[in-house]
């Protein structure tokens, strides 16, 4: 892997993401011509003379925020998945494995059951994610802070998995006792739902922050994959690096879940697809996962809201339905 090859990969994925974004803005129950999409996004001299531009309004206030929310969620989830697969040195790791999403979902469903406003549901999700992050930090402090001599990954994974299972039980309990009228909304949230409304500036900022925090450490991540002992022998500050990965991955997951609910499958599958296609160099993989994950969720959401328009499907259903066969095909047809 060289810097030039990585730049080429990022450029291709960036163009792909832009194409999906353009399609998301143009397609839907009311098709909008590409020229009018551009006019709506960049209102120049014509804008003053068109007061009741319905198509422009749809593009600006409905489709653009939604597409951007999808991009941010996908990018954050794929990035978090790639990071956790390195941290836990386990191909099965994904953003939800350490319980961040479970905490967010539990708190968010509580808020929904109580009939709170949408912003309060988001705030609860965020609080739940943080509660879960702190819980794991406290319980696994030996693994994340102290840097014990033996390989810490399996215990950290088990700690997180058990906490995730605990949240799962609470979620089931909430769904069982929830009033009939609220159940549908709660299920949508659980599968992943991008029906937000405003441009997700906080998620966008979280994405940029996460990339900025991890990219300088990407060469260290490559080394960490060879085991703690090998990484320390090569001069990697393993303990600090683990804590950094955990915090960045958890905060990225929290931002994604707060924005779009627990959209499944992206965090597991997108990093693996890129690995199978392009190799496992974290310097290339982290930005590539963000771009590809973003494009994947935007694309899935486009399908989710057009396939049975005007009704909508939860985006998580599409990511899983499309992702499972594609991923299995790639896995089984790879050459050694």
């Amino acid at each position, binding site marked *: 892997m060289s810097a030039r090859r990585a730049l080429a990969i990022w450029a291709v994925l960036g163009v792909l993401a832009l194409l999906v974004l353009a399609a998301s803005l143009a397609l839907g129950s009311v098709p909008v011509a590409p020229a009018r999409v551009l006019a709506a996004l960049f209102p120049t001299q014509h804008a003053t003379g068109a007061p009741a531009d319905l198509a422009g309004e749809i593009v600006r206030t409905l489709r653009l925020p939604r597409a951007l929310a999808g991009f941010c969620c996908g990018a954050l989830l794929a990035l978090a998945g790639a990071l956790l697969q390195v941290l836990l040195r386990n191909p099965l790791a994904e953003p939800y494995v350490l319980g961040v999403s479970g905490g967010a979902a539990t708190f968010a469903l509580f808020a929904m059951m109580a009939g709170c406003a949408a912003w309060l549901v988001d705030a609860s999700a965020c609080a739940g994610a943080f509660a879960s992050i702190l819980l794991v930090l406290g319980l696994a402090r030996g693994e994340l802070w102290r840097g014990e001599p033996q390989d810490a990954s399996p215990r950290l994974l088990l700690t997180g998995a058990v906490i995730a299972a605990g949240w799962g039980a609470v979620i089931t309990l909430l769904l069982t006792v929830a009033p009939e009228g609220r159940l549908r909304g709660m299920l949508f949230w659980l599968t992943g739902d991008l029906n937000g409304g405003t441009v997700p500036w906080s998620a966008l900022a979280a994405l940029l922050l996460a990339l900025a925090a991890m990219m300088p450490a990407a060469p260290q991540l490559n*080394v960490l994959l060879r085991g703690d002992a*090998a990484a320390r022998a090569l001069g990697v500050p393993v303990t600090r690096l683990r804590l950094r990965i955990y915090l960045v991955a958890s905060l990225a997951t929290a931002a994604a879940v707060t924005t779009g609910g627990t959209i499944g499958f992206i965090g597991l599958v997108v990093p693996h697809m890129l690995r199978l296609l392009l190799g496992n160099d974290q310097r290339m993989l982290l930005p590539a996962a963000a771009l590809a994950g973003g494009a994947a969720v935007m694309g899935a959401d486009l399908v989710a809201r057009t396939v049975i328009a005007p009704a909508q499907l939860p985006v998580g259903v599409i990511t899983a339905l499309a992702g499972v066969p594609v991923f299995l095909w790639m896995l089984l047809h790879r050459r050694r």
Partner: protein
Amino acid sequence: MSEHATSTGMLSAQRITLRAGARTLLADFTHTFYPGEIWCIAGPNGAGKTTLLATLAGLRRPAAGQVEIDGVPVADWPPVRLAQRRALLPQTAHDAFSASVLDVVLLNRFPHLSGWGWERSEDRIAAHEALAQLGLAEFAARDVLSLSGGERQRVALAATLCQQAPLMLLDEPLTHLDLHHQIGCLEALAAWSCEADRSLLRTLLFSCHDLNLARRFATHALLLDGAGGAYAGPVRDVLTPARASRAFGYPLTLIRDGDDEALVPALRANSRDASRQSPPGDGTSPNSSNSSF
């Protein structure tokens, strides 16, 4: 680059004590390892070979004493600068994800990377050279997950070589190799530790269970008895039948055929004589894996 290549790689253990739980593995051990020397660390299972190597590499704090590399305590070295001076091959390598052999070897160039951490052409050249030294040139594009245990171990050794540190610590580098490759690796390591014209000397320590390979390729040996004691010195003075018998808890005898020598387990008839050479009760160390005679 050149400043590391000419640095010495001198390793000094000063009154170090190693403990595992309540057991003392090594007590008050002082020794200096010099460039140009090839050390074999021998001893029974659980005697503390891995612990000692990790301590000498600066990855583990000794219970007492300190380790110095090139005259500076290991704790005072910045981790990356230390990794430019000493390489450690751990006993196990993790391969959860597939990667090409070349990429795995290139990882050991980490201490030499700068900027955004992309390898330069000199890093690639070093990796290809290290692979070639161990006869792995045609493996560069292979997936590490497709390698056999022995091949994977040679790749790990190539990676350690490509780190180009003047001090190299290897934890059981020969375990999974067949005899042919054991000798090939030892010859490559011997060439690495001492350039043909003796213009560049490096320090090499490796742990090993094959005393005969050690006697043939190492210049010095460090024999651990796992109960706090250690003998260090020229390999033929340390790996003697009497000392090795006592450390491993089984009588060994040295046989000769011309210039070739080998330490072999003594037959039962001789074993009584051999065990009588050492004082009663001393013949079996607490870690002895064999107490059947």
